[in-house]
């Protein structure tokens, strides 16, 4: 429970993920672990459309595919090592003392889930490899990651600047109160201006809770700008976000059940897709 785990891949996000991790590491005074996962891509080159299988078909195919994998694997490992070395060098230059690096085979969501016991915070890029330049493309794995892990996840934007203010989307649910508590306990955002935003919904006593949240944050020394708005959750939040030049967004994970999300989509994913600043998802 004490490391900032940052996922580095070869997309254009690597530098920003690295900078976000450095910022978090400094604010929280925790060590960084850079993680690079080697995800298997389906082998090509073994394509043989003859549709025939002859004597020893299975063993010769296995042999052929093992050789292909071996070649690709070695190359990918080498590249991963270089990426990690760059990240470590950058963190060193920024003055981080304890830096670990780790390479794992397989899916990065699984790798992160396995490291969860050691994690204080996970940093991932908004879009992974294969989404280069596609502005709205959210890494395919982010949704799975957020569902699977119980650690706070920071989604890094294309370029990172240290946030001076942040927006907390507070809906009055219990999850939102827990998020509030975590912000107060956490220390990551001490000293930044807090934009407490509540969009009216049919939650009971929402207005009172909103007032309480505002008071609590103020008592803890945050400079609070509180707004109680009406309208569509996603649209209102985005409007506020742009209007006030918000530098970081904090949200609780998925408010809807899985089935509802399947049909309606989720506000969390839409926010992740459309924010060009760091976004923290708390569980």
């Amino acid at each position: 429970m004490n490391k900032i785990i940052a996922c580095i891949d070869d997309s254009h996000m690597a530098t920003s993920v690295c900078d976000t991790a450095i910022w978090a590491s400094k604010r929280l005074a925790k060590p960084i672990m850079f993680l690079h996962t080697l995800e298997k891509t389906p082998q090509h080159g073994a394509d043989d459309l003859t549709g025939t299988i002859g004597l020893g078909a299975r063993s010769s195919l296995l042999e052929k595919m093992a050789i292909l994998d071996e070649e690709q694997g070695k190359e990918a490992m080498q590249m991963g090592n270089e990426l990690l070395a760059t990240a470590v060098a950058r963190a060193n230059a920024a003055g981080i003392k304890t830096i670990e690096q780790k390479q794992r085979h397989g899916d990065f969501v699984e790798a992160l889930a396995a490291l969860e016991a050691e994690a204080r915070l996970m940093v991932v890029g908004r879009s992974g490899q294969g989404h280069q330049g596609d502005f709205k493309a959210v890494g395919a794995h982010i949704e799975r990651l957020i569902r699977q892990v119980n650690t706070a996840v920071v989604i890094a934007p294309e370029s990172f600047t240290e946030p001076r203010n942040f927006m907390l989307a507070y809906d009055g649910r219990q999850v939102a109160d827990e998020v509030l508590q975590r912000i107060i306990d956490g220390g990551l955002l001490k000293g930044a201006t807090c934009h407490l935003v509540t969009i009216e919904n049919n939650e009971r006593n929402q207005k009172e809770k909103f007032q309480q949240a505002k008071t609590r944050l103020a008592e803890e020394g945050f400079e609070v700008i509180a707004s109680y708005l009406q309208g569509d959750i996603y649209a209102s939040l985005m409007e506020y976000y742009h209007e006030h030049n918000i530098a970081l967004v904090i949200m609780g994970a998925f408010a809807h059940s899985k089935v509802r999300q399947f049909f309606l989509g989720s506000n969390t994913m839409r926010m992740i897709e459309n924010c060009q600043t760091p976004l923290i998802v708390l569980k």
Partner: protein
Amino acid sequence: MIFLSKKADWLGNIRGDVLAGIVVALALVPEAIAFSIIAGVDPKVGLYASFCIATIIAIVGGRPGMISAATGAMALLMVTLVKEHGLEYLLAATLLTGVLQIIAGYLKLGSLMRFVSRSVVTGFVNALAILIFLAQLPELTNVTWHVYAMTAAGLGIIYLFPYLPVLGKNIPSPLVCIVLLTILSQVIGLEIRTVGDMGELPDTLPIFLWPDVPLNMTTLWIILPYSIGLAIVGLLESMMTATIVDDLTDTKSDRNRECKGQGIANIGAGLLGGMAGCAMIGQSIINIKSGGRGRLSTITAGIFLLILVVFLGEWLKQIPMAALVAVMIMVSIGTFSWSSIRDMKSHPLSSSIVMVATVIVVVGTHNLAMGVFVGVLLSALFFANKISRFMVVKQTMTAEQMRTYKVTGQIFFASADKFVDAFDFQEVVDKVSIDLSHAHFWDISAVGALDKVVIKFRREGAVVELVGMNDATATVIDKFAVHNDPAAVEKMMTGH
């Protein structure tokens, strides 16, 4: 959740999956027809089954890239049911098979596969290859020389066409074989059997049909034995194929999801007029070889198969059976594990016996489940026998009139007698010490043997001391042993 899949499983390899799916569909058509003939039903039953199973398993299966459809292993189990009760009972049995497989999935029976040793798997695969080959023999007996010539020509095309430059690598040679032989037999007007002679082919899309059987206990007792057999064989072949695909692609599959998926696919097949099926070893290898990796390859195979069949039905009827036989012989050759014959010399005799016994039982009974059962039993016996040899009793004279026995190794039912025989009860000594610090007692046979030894020494007038029982041994002995309990000793000594 059984319907949720990673996006990459569907869209991670679009080009490879679509091409491989088409290649697989082309080979599935002759197989589905051939297996329908084995089961004694119209070719359309197998073709509908292959479409349904491939399409459904693509969504709900636990092993992306694996091909499931109507199979020979399953067809062989249906023969009697179809002969005695007809197609409707087969469809009902297919539904029940699906239900049983879903239950197996929820009970996590997929993990039982760990008891199936490598030799049994090899035996299963070889037996399957032999059965597929044997199933072609009716087409090759009592026929004119034209059929032999056609089959030989078909095999020649299948294996030699890929050597042609450019064309050979890009057009599936089984397709070339079927097309050329069909044209040939039409042009010279040969009077040989064609697919059209074997029964009805599909002319429409499959339609939803509840099997027309009375819903009562009599029906249940008719179909249940068949369904159990089908469920077991289907899961066995699917699990084995999943292992093969896992090895080839170096990825993992979700076995319990696959069990449930096979069940759902069979229910789907039963409701749309298809017979039960499972994963196919040969086709899955062809799929991987053609570049198929994801779920898209399986669904492409299913849908393309249906398109082929429904729109080319008239053409399918003209295909000479000899062409199908050639394709099936290829599948048989490709499925057979030739390395298992080559490695027989270097492998331990016991594993070769297990493999051969599995093959013999399957070929004899036409039931793959029986073969696997015998194979698993034999491997367990061989294993027990091997472990029982890891038991040594050393004796030393430590003091005047005191004998120490030092026991090392595993004591259980297979080594219990050997353990008792290792003690010399004729020797006259005052004290016997049995050192068990390096022994392990596994079951009540072992505990019984120790009791027997202790009591025998006591009856000869020696004082027995047990030393150094390690913790594990102590727990087993505490649970079962009687020699500290006088009443129990008496009971045992009197024999009742």
